[in-house]
C-alpha cells in the first residue's frame, strides 16, 4: 500500500508506546503512594491514559506494518485512503487522551472515553478495510493466499465487528441487565484483543518468511490448522474471563472446552522447541530475529499460564487478582510488543537505511534490560496475585486496606522493575524512531545489520 504512511503510522505508534510506558510507570508509583498521590495523579485518569496509549501503540504499529507489507495499488487512491485512515485514528487517539487528562469519561473499562469518539476509530478501520481490499484486488493472487493475509483479513473484520459489539451497551436491551451487559462486553473485548493479535501475528509471519526465505511455511496445511485454532479461540474462548458471572452454562462450558484446545498450540511449541533453538542460533545475528526469540519464550510462559487460568477450578483463585494483570502484561509486552518491535526493526532495515553499529548496541541493551525487568515485573505481579488469593480464601471478609498492606512488598517489586522496563523500552523506541526519521545513508563499515537481510 503506501510506504510513507506506513512509517508515519509506525512512528506515531512508537510515540504512544513511550507515552504508555511512562503512564504505566506512574501507575506503578501510585500503587506505592496511593494516599499521597490520590488528588495529584488520580488513578481514574492514569489507568486509562496508560491502557489507551498502549492500545494505540499496537493499532498504529500493526496498521503501519500492513501499509508496508501489502501489495501497492494505485498510488493516489492508496495514499488518500491511508492518510484518511491515519488522520481519523490519530484524531481519535489525541481526543481520547485529552478527554482522560481533563477527566471526561462516559465509556467503559478500556474504552472509557465518551462513546461518540468511537465513530472515528470505526471509520478509520473501514478505510483500512477498503485499502486492504483494493490492494489485494489490484494484484490478485495466482496461488492460494499465505496464512498471514488471512490473519490480516481476520484482524480487520473482527476488529470492526467486535468494536461495534462493544457499544451494544448503548441499547436498552443490553444496558438494562448488568449480567447480559457484562457478558457481551467481555465477549467483544476477548475478540478485540484476538483481532489485533491477528494483525500482529500476520506481520510477524510475513517477516519470518522474508528472513528465512522459506515460502512453504506460511502456506502449509499445519500452519493453517494453527491459524484456525487461534481463530476458533478468538471466537469462542472469551467466556473464561467470567466463569463466576451467572450466565448460561453453555457459555461457561464452551469457554472451558475451547480454551483447552490451546494445549495443542502448547504441544506444537514444545515439539518444535529444538528446531526453534537451532533456528535461533542460525539467525541470532539478525536484529528482528532476536525479538522473535524473546517473544517465543514469553509465548511459552504465557500460554502455560493462560491454560491454567482457563481451568475454572484454578480461575476461581486467580480471577480478580494480579495474576490476571501479570498475564495481560506478559502478553502485551512480552509477546505483542516484542513482535511489533521485530516488525519495525525489519522495516527499518528493509525500507530505510538500517542501523549503525552503535544503534544496534543500544537496541540490544534495551532488549536485555526490558526483558530482564519484565521477568521481575511479571513474577512480582504473580506473587501479589497468589498472596491476595491465599489471604482472601483464608478470610473472605478481610478488609481491603489490610489486604493491600500485605501486598506492598510485591508492589515495590513491580514498581521498581517498571522503571527498568520503561528505560529498556524507551531506549529501543528512541533508536527505532531515529532510524525511521534519519534518511542519511549509514557509512559502509557500519552496515553489517543491513547486509544481513
Amino acid at each position, binding site marked *: 500500500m503506501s510506504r510513507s504512511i506506513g512509517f508515519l503510522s509506525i512512528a506515531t505508534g512508537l510515540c504512544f508506546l513511550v507515552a504508555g510506558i511512562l503512564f504505566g510507570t506512574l501507575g506503578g508509583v501510585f500503587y506505592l503512594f496511593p494516599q499521597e498521590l490520590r*488528588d495529584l495523579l488520580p488513578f481514574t485518569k492514569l489507568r486509562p491514559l496508560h491502557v489507551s496509549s498502549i492500545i494505540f501503540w499496537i493499532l498504529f504499529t500493526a496498521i503501519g506494518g500492513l501499509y508496508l507489507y501489502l501489495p501497492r495499488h494505485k498510488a493516489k487512491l492508496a495514499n488518500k485512503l491511508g492518510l484518511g485512515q491515519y488522520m481519523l485514528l490519530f484524531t481519535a487517539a489525541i481526543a481520547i487522551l485529552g478527554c482522560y487528562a481533563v477527566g471526561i469519561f462516559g465509556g467503559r473499562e478500556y474504552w472509557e472515553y465518551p462513546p461518540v469518539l468511537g465513530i472515528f476509530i470505526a471509520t478509520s478501520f473501514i478505510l483500512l478495510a477498503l485499502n486492504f481490499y483494493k490492494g489485494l484486488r489490484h494484484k490478485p493472487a495466482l496461488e492460494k*493466499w499465505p496464512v498471514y493475509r488471512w490473519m490480516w483479513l481476520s484482524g480487520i473484520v473482527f476488529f470492526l465487528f467486535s468494536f461495534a459489539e462493544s457499544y451494544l451497551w448503548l441499547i436498552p436491551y443490553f444496558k438494562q441487565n448488568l449480567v447480559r451487559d457484562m457478558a457481551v462486553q467481555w465477549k467483544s473485548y476477548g475478540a478485540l484483543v484476538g483481532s489485533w493479535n491477528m494483525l500482529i501475528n500476520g506481520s510477524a509471519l510475513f517477516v519470518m518468511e522474508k528472513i528465512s526465505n522459506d515460502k512453504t511455511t506460511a502456506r502449509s496445511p499445519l500452519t493453517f490448522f494453527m491459524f484456525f485454532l487461534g481463530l476458533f479461540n478468538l*471466537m469462542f474462548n472469551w467466556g473464561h474471563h467470567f466463569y463466576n458471572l451467572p450466565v448460561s452454562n453453555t457459555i461457561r462450558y464452551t469457554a472451558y472446552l475451547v480454551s483447552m484446545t490451546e494445549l495443542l498450540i502448547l504441544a506444537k511449541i514444545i515439539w518444535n522447541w529444538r528446531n526453534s533453538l537451532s533456528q535461533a542460533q542460525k539467525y541470532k545475528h539478525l536484529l528482528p530475529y532476536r525479538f522473535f526469540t524473546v517473544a517465543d519464550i514469553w509465548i511459552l510462559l504465557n500460554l502455560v499460564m493462560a491454560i491454567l487460568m482457563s481451568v475454572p477450578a484454578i480461575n476461581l483463585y486467580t480471577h480478580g487478582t494480579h495474576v490476571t494483570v501479570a498475564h495481560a502484561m506478559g502478553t502485551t509486552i512480552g509477546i505483542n510488543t516484542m513482535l511489533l518491535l521485530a516488525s519495525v526493526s525489519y522495516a527499518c532495515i528493509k525500507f530505510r537505511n538500517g542501523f549503525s553499529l552503535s544503534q544496534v548496541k543500544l537496541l540490544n541493551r534495551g532488549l536485555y534490560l526490558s526483558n530482564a525487568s519484565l521477568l521481575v515485573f511479571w513474577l512480582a505481579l504473580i506473587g501479589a496475585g497468589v498472596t491476595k488469593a491465599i489471604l482472601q480464601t483464608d478470610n473472605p471478609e478481610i478488609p481491603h486496606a489490610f489486604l493491600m498492606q500485605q501486598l506492598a512488598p510485591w508492589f515495590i517489586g513491580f514498581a521498581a522493575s517498571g522503571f527498568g522496563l520503561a528505560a529498556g523500552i524507551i531506549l529501543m523506541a528512541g533508536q527505532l524512531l531515529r532510524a525511521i526519521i534519519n534518511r542519511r545513508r549509514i557509512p559502509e563499515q557500519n552496515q553489517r545489520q543491513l547486509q544481513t537481510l
Partner: protein
Amino acid sequence: MLDRVLGTAIGIKLVYGCLLGCFLFFTAFVYTSEVPETAALPDQELALRGKHIWQEKNCSACHQFYGLGGYLGPDVTNVMSAKGKGEGYVRAILENGTATMPDFNLSVKDIDALVAYLIESDRSGKSGREHFEKDYFGQIHLKDQTNIPQQ
C-alpha cells in the same frame, strides 16, 4: 486429511465460512440467553442513572464487578449485602471518599443512583470465591443456585 482440507484454497474458505457461521450463531445465542432478571426492580431507572455515573467517574479504574475492573479498590458486586457493610457504609464512603479514594463531590441524587446500581449488582448474583464449589470436571458452580438461569 489435513492436507486435503487445508491444502487447497477452497478447503480453507470452506473452513473459514463454517467457523464464521458457528460464531454468528453462538453470538445470537449469547445475546438472547437467559440471565438473572434484575430489570424488574422497582428502582430500575435510578439504577441506570447510577450506571451512567459509575461510567462518568470511571469507577471501574479501581473497582470491580464480578472480579472485572481495576484492583486498587475492592470488588463491589455484593457490597450491599456483605457482613459489616451495606447501604450506610456505601453512602458514607460515597459522601466523603477514603484515604485512597477521592471525594467525587457527589450530590445526594447521584449517591441514591449509585446505591440503586449497587443494589442491582448485588441481586444479580455472587462474586466471592467462597460462594462457589468445584465439580469433578473442574467447572465451578454457585452453592446457592437461585440466581443461575435455568437451562
